[in-house]
């Protein structure tokens, strides 16, 4: 009874996606000279390349084919420049702000500048994974997370397509990356790492790094004093776990599950897209002039690149090359296929035709929804997540824009925003072992093992909801401020003449098709 209450009191930090742990010393008594795992490293380098491909040219072509031919180069250029700019900002300060310990009251929300310019990071420094005593070279983690940071703002481009000034796009991306992406990444994914949760004398260095020298000795003494009393041991481990995780991200410590970025990437970008679409206003001639996609073949090529690249995004978020990565991989396929079929079915029933654009959109909606879920749900759950998300996104895409009158040109909110929210909530449902999910992990132990953490669906759904709400509010507010700054400096929109002529000629001085 007492033990149940203790373990229920605090959700022991569960298995999360793409988090980085601290590894403080090159060698300690716990693991003699930790060495990165070559198999994991090889996989992660490949996965990282796949995520680059998702943006470039995946997303670029997906969006490019959907706009009118006079604007296709503006899309490609916005994606290109956003990607390059964020990549550089990432190594200047982004990585540090997202994935180091913060200080003071802001620590749960943002990191610090200790690794600005990648200070202290070299080919020998290590990053932790989700298994104890398993490491990656830190550079691998830097790049892997960089690719996530690069694709997220690029997603927003679809919302304000065909009318936003290039200069405004870049200013907006810079501000939004700093104040919406980085804090979300830190809040959801930053944790002390699995090795910090082993309360054992052999692990002294990591314990000291996590809670300080005095507390380290203190906790170890308490553990020794507990003897063989299981209830007392659990109590010590629980309070140690709290202490070790004191510098974790705010949403991580709330137990929010987000394997590969449903909140950090998709809801974040989706809500920003909604705000941008509203503040930029509707395209001239909307609903009067034809604005059909100029090349759906291009869009499909982009969809394919996104799909294949997403294996790196999702399965790579496992940080190791093992069965869990394979599960994430499998779930990614199943979620996508379930979603594409569901969208096509919905279209066939309501519109009499199942279109290619619908199937491609359904596939993307499924990919978005399975993103937070892929490492946590079972294969059957993945099909359900994809299908449910597709139907909800299909409805959203059809109903929300006419209802509220905003011009989210390429349905960034309808697919990424709504899909991300659905996926995040359903993750909390289908992680349940009763529904085929992997359940939650308790890392705190007196040895190298982990145990099963208790799962209560209502509590988990509340954790998920908090993450979703945080993403919505943070992204909404930051986007509004960023766009307002753009509006009163360079201006948000091109003038009417430019918009009619097409952004390619007017903003970039070139034509796509000659």
């Amino acid at each position, binding site marked *: 009874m007492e033990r149940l209450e203790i373990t229920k009191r605090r959700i022991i930090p569960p298995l999360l996606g793409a988090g980085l742990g601290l590894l403080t010393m090159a060698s300690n008594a716990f693991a003699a000279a930790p060495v990165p795992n070559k198999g994991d490293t090889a996989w992660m380098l490949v996965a990282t390349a796949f995520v680059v491909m998702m943006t470039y040219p995946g997303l670029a072509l997906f969006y490019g084919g959907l706009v009118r031919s006079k604007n296709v180069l503006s899309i490609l250029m916005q994606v290109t420049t956003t990607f390059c700019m964020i990549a550089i900002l990432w190594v200047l300060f982004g990585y540090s702000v997202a994935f180091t310990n913060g200080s003071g009251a802001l620590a749960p929300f943002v990191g610090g500048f200790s690794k600005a310019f990648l200070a202290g990071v070299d080919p020998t420094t290590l990053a932790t994974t989700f298994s104890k005593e398993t490491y990656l070279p830190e550079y691998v983690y830097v790049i892997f997370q960089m690719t996530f940071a690069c694709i997220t703002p690029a997603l927003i481009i679809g919302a304000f397509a065909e009318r936003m000034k290039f200069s405004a796009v870049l200013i907006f991306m810079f501000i939004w990356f700093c104040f919406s992406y980085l804090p979300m990444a830190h809040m959801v994914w930053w944790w002390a790492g699995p090795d910090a949760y082993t309360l054992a004398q052999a692990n002294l260095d990591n314990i000291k790094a996590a809670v300080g020298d005095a507390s380290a000795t203190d906790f170890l003494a308490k553990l020794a004093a507990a003897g063989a009393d299981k209830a007392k041991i659990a109590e010590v481990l629980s309070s140690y776990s709290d202490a070790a995780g004191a510098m974790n991200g705010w949403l991580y410590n709330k137990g929010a599950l987000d394997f590969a970025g449903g909140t950090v990437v998709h809801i974040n970008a989706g809500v920003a897209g909604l705000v941008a679409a509203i503040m930029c206003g509707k395209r001239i001639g909307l609903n009067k002039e034809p604005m059909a996609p100029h090349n759906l073949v291009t869009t499909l090529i982009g969809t394919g690149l996104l799909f294949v690249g997403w294996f790196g995004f999702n399965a790579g978020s496992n940080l190791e090359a093992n069965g869990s990565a394979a599960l994430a991989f499998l779930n990614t396929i199943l979620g996508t296929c379930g979603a594409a079929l569901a969208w096509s079915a919905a279209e066939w029933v309501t519109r009499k*035709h199942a*279109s290619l*654009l619908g199937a491609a*959109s359904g596939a993307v909606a499924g990919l978005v929804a399975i993103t937070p879920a892929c490492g946590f749900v079972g294969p059957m759950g993945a099909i359900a997540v994809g299908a449910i998300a597709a139907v909800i996104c299909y409805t959203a895409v059809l109903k929300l824009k006419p209802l509220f009158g905003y011009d989210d040109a390429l349905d960034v909110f309808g697919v990424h925003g709504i899909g991300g929210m659905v996926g995040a909530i359903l993750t909390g449902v289908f992680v349940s072992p009763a529904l085929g999910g992997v359940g939650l992990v308790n890392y705190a132990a007196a040895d190298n093992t982990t145990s099963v953490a208790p799962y209560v669906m209502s509590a988990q759904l509340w954790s998920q909801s908090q993450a979703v709400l945080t993403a919505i509010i943070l992204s909404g507010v930051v986007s509004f401020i960023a766009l307002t700054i753009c509006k009163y400096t360079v201006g948000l929109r091109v003038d009417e003449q430019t918009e009619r002529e097409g952004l390619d000629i007017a903003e970039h001085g070139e034509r796509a098709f000659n």
Partner: protein
Amino acid sequence: MKYIIAIIKPFKLEEVREALSAIGVQGITVTEVKGHGRQRGHTEFYRGAEYAVSFVPKVKIEVAVESALAAKVVEAIQTAGKTGQIGDGKVFVLPLEDAIRVRTGETGASAL
């Protein structure tokens, strides 16, 4: 001389061209156009955006002939281009003031 403009269904182009060739018309200009008479278009649906596409793809043929040949040309186009269904098109006959061959400068009937 007469200038004859005909709008026909695109897949009828080869048949019409052969029919014209058979009666001695050698020069022809072809343009891809869009239009409609009483033939209705269709609806296209792109993820929430519905477009009523009222224009149907057609082909426009233009030939310049001597007045004596005009009636035969009209008949040839009409016979070859007809399917019996709505949207077969129309033929227009206009008076042609002059024609000049760019290479040689010939004018009138010898330029045709």
